Structure formats: structure tokens, C-alpha cells
């Protein structure tokens, strides 16, 4: 073989060698850290779950379980004064003997053999004042039903029609008075309870947070380009736009209903009752940032910066969040 042929062959091999390869991690290998997860509220005694983190290159089994820390010392401080040590229950869960009060600063300090001591703290937020819950309902879509099937083509409503299927949007306005002091953060929880005279009871947490404070992109229906911003899965918001004022918070729930024509009234069974249960929570800033950042970790976009889920644990990982219920409102839905 001539040298030129060897050289050509060598060049071809080099040029077409895969430019993708596994590499060694040359950064600092981080030791496991304490993970503290706790959400506290004035209504309940304090609990916390303590586990250990894993280095990202370590092997995982398919259980997704993490090593729980059963021999940790979990000390609670209230307003910087030591209160008590939490007791171990099971599965990494620890429990205190008391519930925190509004206005208190709760600090957890966790130490365990072989791990750095970690700590975190949060302030118990005061509740905002709920004033009223208003609602309006309207049919957004209706389709004729024939022989048990509904047809989305309106023109097909003929003598075969036995009834109508409706989509009903219930728009709500939750009036509440924001707290005067500082910046406040909230979470809206909406539960739709469907019950059928004791036959079944179904709960749904699905609703549309249509208010401007939700921060959801207005172009979410734009299917031309890919957009990736924070989805507000947990319906949190701040008082940036209404600080210290009364605010009507808007959201909506869509329900479905079938109404048969009078001639087919016999087909109509008992109608389930629909009830909406609305709760507003005052939440700590850390809890707000955590709930805002956590849903986005599922986004896979190679052009985007990876999501940094908010943590407020020093020398460790996790979240100590606090929330205070501002009250609950219930409304029966009818149409």
C-alpha cells in the first residue's frame, strides 16, 4: 500500500470517527448531603422527612427510593430558642410535639453521623382575609347526542337527537384582602367534589388559573413555536400587582353535563351534585419559589438552562415551607 493511500485512509478514519464520547467527571465529587423536607402549618404538629442525597453518577435501582436517615438528631428552634428534639417515627419521618403559631420563626437543625449538619428556617405567615366567592356559569359548547354518542358537528342535530351534551365553564372570583406588610405569597387550592347520593364521590384538583397573577404565558395556545416557561402547576402567586389591597382572584372550572330531551327523560338518571371547595393559603417565600420552580424540572429543552429547584436548606438540600390557611369557601354548582 502506498503512503498516500495509508494517509488517505487514516484521514478518513479520523474524520468519520464519532465526535461523541463518554468522559470522566473531573469536577469535585460531592459527598451525600442531608435532605430535609417539611411543610409546616399552624393547624398541625411539625413533621419532617430526612433522607440522604446521591451523587448523580451513582448507580440507581428502579425503586427510586432514597436512603432514609433514621438516627438523625432533629432540633427545633422557635424564634432562635431551642424548643425540643423531634422523635423518629418511621421511613425517615420525624415528628414534634407541638404546632407552630403564626408569626413564629421555626428553625430545624439536623445532624447525623457521617453527614454535615444542615439547617433551615421559615416564618409562619399570617393569613389574608377572604371576603367572598362569586361565580357565574355559561355553556361553552353543546353537542347533540344520538343513540348514546355525541357528535361535535352541530349540523347533525336531527330527529335522532335524544339529548344534548354540554360543556359548562364556571368562572369564579375569590375576593380577598392582601396583608398590608411586605411582599406576600399565596397558593390557591381548588377542589371539585362530584358526588352521587353516596354512590360515588370523586375529587378533582383540575382548574384553570386564569388570573393575570398566575404568570402563565398568554400565548400558550401558539402551537407554531415551542415555548417553555414555568408552568404554574401548583397555582402560586405573589401580591406584586395588588400589594395591601383587596383583590378579586379569577379562576375557572369546566364541568360536563348531559341533558336529555323531555321525550327521553326516562333515560336521565340521578344528576350528581357538584361542589367547589376553594382554599387560599398564605405561604412563605421559599415555599412559593419551590412550588414555582419544581414543575419545570420535567422540561427537556437542550437550548434552555436546566431548572434549579429552589432549596432553603443550608449545607444540605430540601425545603422547609410554611403555609397558613386563609380559610375555605364552598359553593354548590348548578346550571
Amino acid at each position: 500500500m502506498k503512503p498516500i493511500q495509508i494517509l488517505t485512509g487514516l484521514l478518513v478514519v479520523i474524520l468519520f470517527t464519532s465526535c461523541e464520547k463518554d468522559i470522566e467527571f473531573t469536577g469535585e465529587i460531592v459527598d451525600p448531603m442531608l435532605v430535609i423536607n417539611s411543610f409546616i402549618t399552624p393547624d398541625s404538629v411539625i413533621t419532617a422527612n430526612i433522607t440522604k442525597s446521591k451523587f448523580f453518577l451513582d448507580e440507581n435501582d428502579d425503586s427510586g427510593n432514597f436512603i432514609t436517615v433514621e438516627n438523625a438528631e432533629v432540633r427545633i428552634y422557635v424564634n432562635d430558642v431551642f424548643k425540643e428534639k423531634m422523635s423518629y417515627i418511621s421511613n425517615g419521618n420525624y415528628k414534634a410535639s407541638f404546632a407552630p403559631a403564626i408569626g413564629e420563626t421555626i428553625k430545624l437543625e439536623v445532624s447525623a453521623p457521617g453527614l454535615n449538619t444542615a439547617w433551615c428556617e421559615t416564618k409562619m405567615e399570617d393569613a389574608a382575609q377572604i371576603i367572598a366567592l362569586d361565580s357565574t356559569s355559561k355553556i361553552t359548547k353543546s353537542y347533540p347526542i344520538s343513540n348514546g354518542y355525541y357528535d361535535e358537528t352541530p349540523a347533525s342535530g336531527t330527529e335522532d337527537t335524544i339529548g344534548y351534551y354540554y360543556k359548562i365553564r364556571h368562572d369564579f372570583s375569590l375576593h380577598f384582602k392582601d396583608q398590608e406588610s411586605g411582599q406576600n405569597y399565596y397558593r390557591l387550592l381548588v377542589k371539585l367534589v362530584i358526588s352521587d347520593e353516596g354512590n360515588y364521590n370523586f375529587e378533582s384538583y383540575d382548574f384553570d388559573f386564569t388570573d393575570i397573577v398566575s404568570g402563565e404565558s398568554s400565548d400558550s395556545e401558539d402551537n407554531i413555536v415551542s415555548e417553555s416557561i414555568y408552568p404554574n402547576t401548583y397555582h402560586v402567586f405573589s401580591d406584586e400587582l395588588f400589594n395591601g389591597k383587596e383583590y378579586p382572584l379569577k379562576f375557572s372550572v369546566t364541568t360536563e353535563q348531559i341533558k336529555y330531551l323531555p321525550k327521553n327523560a326516562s333515560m336521565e338518571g340521578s344528576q350528581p351534585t357538584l361542589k367547589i371547595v376553594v382554599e387560599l393559603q398564605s405561604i412563605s417565600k421559599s415555599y412559593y419559589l419551590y412550588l414555582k420552580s419544581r414543575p419545570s424540572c420535567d422540561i427537556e429543552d437542550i437550548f434552555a438552562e436546566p431548572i434549579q429547584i429552589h432549596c432553603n436548606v443550608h449545607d444540605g438540600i430540601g425545603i422547609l415551607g410554611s403555609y397558613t390557611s386563609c380559610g375555605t369557601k364552598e359553593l354548590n354548582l348548578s346550571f
Partner: protein
Amino acid sequence: MDPDQDFDFMLKKSVLFFILIFQTIGISATNFTISGYITDQSTGETLISASVFDQISLKGAVSNAFGYYSLTIPAGEVDLQYSYVGYQKENRKFHLNKDTIIHIRLIGSHELKEIVITGDSRKEFGVLGSQMGAIEVPVSQIKSIPTLFGETDVIKALQLLPGVQGGTEGSAGLYVRGGGPDENLLLLDGIPVYNVNHMFGFFSVFNADAIKNVTLYKGNFPARFGGRLSSVVDIRTNDGNDKTYHGNVSVGLISSKFNLEGPIIKEKTTFNISLRRTYADLLLKPVIAYMAKQDENVEKTKAGYYFYDLNTKISHKISDKDKLFLSFYSGDDAIYSVLRENYKNDDQNTVKSNMGMDWDWGNIISAFRWNHLINSKLFMNATASFTRYRFDMGIEESTKEKTENSQSENSQYLYAGYSSGIQDYSVKADFDYIPGAGHNIKFGGNYIYHTFRPGVTVQKFNQDDDVSSRIDTTIGDRNVYAHETMLYAEDDINLCTFVKANIGLHYSTFNVQKQFYHSLEPRLSMRFLLSDKLSFKTGFATMSQYIHLLSNSNISLPTDLWVPVTKRITPMKSQQVSAGFYYNLMKYLDLSIEGYYKSMNNLIEYKDGASFMGSSTGWENKVSIGRGRAYGIEFLIQKSYGNTTGWLGYTWSKSERLFNRPDQEINNGEVFPAKYDRRHNVSLTMTHQFSERIDLSGSWVYYTGQCGTLALQTYSGPGIQQSTDNSSQQLSYISSRNNFRYSPYHRLDLGINFHKKLHHGTRTWNMSVYNAYNQLNPFLVYPNTVNYTDPKTGLYKTRQKLRQVSIFPIIPSISYNYKF
């Protein structure tokens, strides 16, 4: 005193100082002015920044961007020396007793058979000049640097300078002193170029054959420049030879170039035309045609990618006082494909289908210039210009199905298109006023009418001419119009023999969608001459920027979109101070060491998880506003004369960002390194001429690895009440943004030129190797999950491994050049 008051106070002081400086300008009755143009002897090209120095009065001046100089000195005997890098000095001795015009033609080194690359201590940027943070890179040097696929590239040559980085591997991006890629003002003959990239950022749009001069300003910006935070790249193109016709033909691995210049009317009207085009699509054409022939269903097919650049310039000398220039640049990238088929389907119906795709993006720049000598001390350059970047994309598909028996026909037509861009109409007037030796005043104004064309999508659908199914929609934002004005004045002033200063003010306004912004920016640069060969320089500059480039983070795509500031996203601002020593050693080596500190305000950064892919809608919600700072030390040693020339540059730098405004937090509101924060940056560029026939060049670069964000831990996340995530789940923990460093980047490029004089010109064979030792540098690093079953336990397991993507291994190239 709060920062705003402090700033106002500083501005007032600057204005007062500036007025005082103007008041000191007195013109002695016994002074006379010598003025004229300095040009190349053989080509007639004007020489920018050439020196004229009277060795009796020890007064001097430099030519401006159009080769014009003016020197006012006392009456009596004068001994003028004209000099320019790589040119033979010219002397004129005479008795000065009236204003005198002297046009000088200097003899170039190519005629002297001597390679002289750079270095002139009297120049604006040398030991004696007041300007700092600026480097002029001769085009001859740019052409000699070996590059990717042998394509000469102005931007990639600039990346080898201290304080400048190029972003990801192979890209023609510019990151200057910790700034972003959209913070550079790239001027082609004074007109902004909005998209400087071809082929997704791997090549720049500047064809070196058309270029006369390239100057990079990294700090201490003269007041005549404004509108970007981090750098100004001032590129001037050739006017054309005014005596004889010359040209250049070059055939390379991926493109060919052609350049022709000469007189239309000898020594009066000249032209210069340069064309570059890639031809991969042309070479592949017969291959695609052959493949199409193998498939009997295919009627026609074509596909390809190319880019081209066309630079043309016509200059006309009306008189010694008036010159006109008309210049035009057009550059495009295009991807296209067509597939036309005619076949019988399973039902034996005849189907005709046509699919086409056409993507085009590029710039058009045109300018009309008028140079007018109002008097020997006052020079005017008036320009009217148009610049446009546009991206158009269209995908079309149509099918027709004909039933043979019934002769009925079914048809379907689908079209999707997208377009975006920016265009400016601009008028400006720049004046050079040289009242006397010791002052060089520049002042002027500029008005720009911007039209921002945000992404607009068009969809069309038609089936069997059925009106009910027809779609014809256009989605997108309306054009946004903005008015930008700039006024400036600066004086390059000799305060005394040892102290020289460049003092200036730049004022700009920006009016968009009922928002009005303005900015007054003081600029100061001072030189203290410590000896003939050593000077200390220091300076201060503030800059503001009214436009942002929306792009994804890694590569340049044609969908990158310029958008103006808004009510919420206010203009970016920067303040930069710098200081350094300049030393000239034995006339051969220029050494400089320069430190800088730059603070930046109202920077934007994508929020976690946000990215941009072509639509400007809602972009304000995807970005956070914050600030940044960058500081560093740059060292440069340059050998300018002799057979061996080149430079060694080293930069130590740090660039950080802080986004801690309420609800704008990134990285928990804590400081994090900027994406292209690199601590060490070394570049060595050398050219050696062995003989008239052979010269060798090489460049070696080393950078600290770029930053990336990597989750180094996984942990258990709690369940959330009243949600679908009501049980614990595995989460990734990212300690901070850009917490991981890629492995260091280093690369050696080599090139060799074989020249031979032929009957009508000179031919050159160039052979070059990019990445000579085949270093697989990281382009992207990501964690890759590997699933496997443990052979011992039979359990299903996963493990992550780091995977590195590299894009350019060793790449040899060859080109042929014939210059006549």
C-alpha cells in the same frame, strides 16, 4: 450622595470640562494648515490612521477613516515625515507660508519586498496615541491565519486577541471582556451589520478580499461610537485601484472567491467587487440528479445549502474637495429542496405531488457617502444608508390525485411560512475639525429609523377547493418602529508634551412604543508619556444599548431575533474603567498590559427552563433583569517587523452575573459565573517567511473550559398536597447556575503558503490543518442515562454517564489563489 446624584454630578463635571477644553482652542495667526489625502502609491487606496509628523515643530496628525489629514503648524521651515505600517516613509521639506494641500502616495511593502505587519508608535493605538483597549488587525495578518476549512475569517482572527473569546467551538461569535454576543457593534463602512454569521455561526459574513482595515475597540470607546456595551468592530472596505485593473481568484475547499478592482475613469472613478460563494450544493447536484434517475416516480428533485457574499463599491472623485462613494453588500444563506413525483398509487390513480422547502436569511447593506472638504481644517462625511437582516422560511406541499375513469380530481395544498427581521434607514453626518496641532475634534449626529419585524407565521391549507376546510391565517406581532438618534463630540487633545487625552460626550435617544429613553455618556482616555517608548494610559467609558438579541444559548440560528427595549426591559448600561502600560521594545516588539473593570446593568438572562425559538411573543416573561461585572488583565506582545511576525496574548478574566431583583431571581439571587467566564486565555499566532516563495503560519489557543449547569446530586422531593404529585419523587439538585466547567479548550492550526510569480500575476497554494493534533474539544456535555440489568442480581438499574459532543476533529484543507 446616592448613586443617581453621583452620576449627575459626574456628568455635569464632564460637560463643564469639555466646554473648558473647547475654550482653550486658540488658533495662532502665524499658523498654517497642511492637509490632503494619504494613499497607496500603486492602488490609490486611502490609508487609514497614517501618520504625518513635522520633525521641526514636533507636531503631528493621523489620517482619518477616509485617508484625510490636516496639520496646523507655525509658519516657517517644516520637515514632514509621512509614515504608515508596512510602507516606506516619505519626507517633504519646504518653507510654510500659506495653507498648503499635499496629497501623498506611499510606497507599500509588497513593492519593497518586505513583510511588515503592524506597529507604529505614533498611531492612535501605539505608545504615543491616546486610545487604549483597541487593536488594529491588518488584513494581511487576517489572511495568513490558518482557519476552519481554510476560510479566511475576520471574526475568528479577532477571537485570537486578548480579551476576546469565541463562544462554542468553531463559532464566529464574539464575547468581549465578559460581555454577551449581542453587545458588539459590527460596522461595515460605518453601517451596523445585524447578523454576522453564515452556516449557523461557523463562518462570518466578512469577505477579507473586500476589506482594507479592521479595528476592534474593547474599551475606552471614542464618543463617535455608541449603541452597544462591549465592543465596536470597525471594518472598512477597499475603494478600488484608481490606476490599473487587478483581481484575485481563489478556489477553496468549501467556497470560491473572486475580486476585481480598477478605474472606471482613471484616478477619478474606481470600482471594487468581491464575490464569495460556497458550492457544496453545485457539486452535489449531479449526485442528486443521478439518485433521482434511479427512482422512476421522481420527476424532479434538487436540494442544497449555500451562502454567498457580494461586496461592491464605487467611488468617484468630483474634485480635490469632494468624493462620492456608493457601496452595497448582500449576503445570504439558503437551504432549499424540491421533490416532484408522479406515480400511480394502490388504487391505480395518478398522483402528482410536489414538496418544497426554501429557507433564506441574510443581510443587505447599502450606503451612499459624500466626503466634503469644507475647508482645510473641517472635513465632512455625510452618509445615507439602509441595512436589513431578514429570515424567510417556507415549506410547501401539494398533491393531486386523478381517477382515470371518472376524471375526477382530488387536490390538497399546504403551506407554512415564517419570516422575521430588522431593518434600518439611517442618515448621519460626521465632521473632523482640526483647528491646530494638539486638537483633533470629531463631532456629528446620526438618526436611525428602525423597523423590527417580529416572527410572523403564515399557514395555508386548501383541500379540493372546499371553502369550509380552507385555512389562510397569519399569526404574529405587528412591526415595531423605533427612532434612535445620537449626537457626539470628542477631542483628541495634547494637554502638554507628556499628556494626551481623548475627551468626548455621546448622547443618544431611543423612542419606541411611547417609551422614551435617553443617555448621556462621558468618555475619557488619557495617555501619560513616561519615556519615548513607555506610556501609561487610563480611561473611562459609559455605554448604553437599546436592543436585545433573542437567541438560544449555544449556537447562532437564523431565527435569532432583534427586539427593542420595552417599558419593563429598560436599556442596558455599562461603565468601564481601564488602565495599562504600553512599551515599544527596539522598534520591533510592542508590549502592553492592560487591566479593566466593567459593570453592567439591566442585562437580561433567560429564566431557568426558558428558551427562544423564533417567536418574540411573551419574550419579556422569559427573561430576568439583572446586572453583571467583568474584570481582568490582558497582556499582549506583538512582533511587527521582520520575517517572523505575530503575537502572544494572555488574558486573566472573570465575568459574573447577579440577578436578585424581586421575582427576577436566578440562582437564588446569588452571584454566578457568566456562561463564557474563562479564567485563562492564551493565544499564540506566528507567521514566518522562509523565502519569497514559502511562508508558514500557525496559531495555538488555550482557554479554560466554559461553564455549564449540571445537577450533581439527586434527592427525594416531597409530595405536594392537593396535586397529582402527592407522593415523593426523585429530583435533581443544581447547586448553582454554571456550576460545572467543561474541560479546557486547546487547538493548534497550521498553514503553509507556496507562492510563485507567473506571467501575469502570482499564484499561491495554501495548505492548512485546523486542529492539527485532533483535540476533541467539548461543544456540549450532558448526563446520559444508561439502563441495564445487573447480571448478578437480575435487578433493573440505571446509571448516568457524562457524554461530550465535539464537532470539529482534525480538518485539512487546501486552496488555490491567483492574484493578477
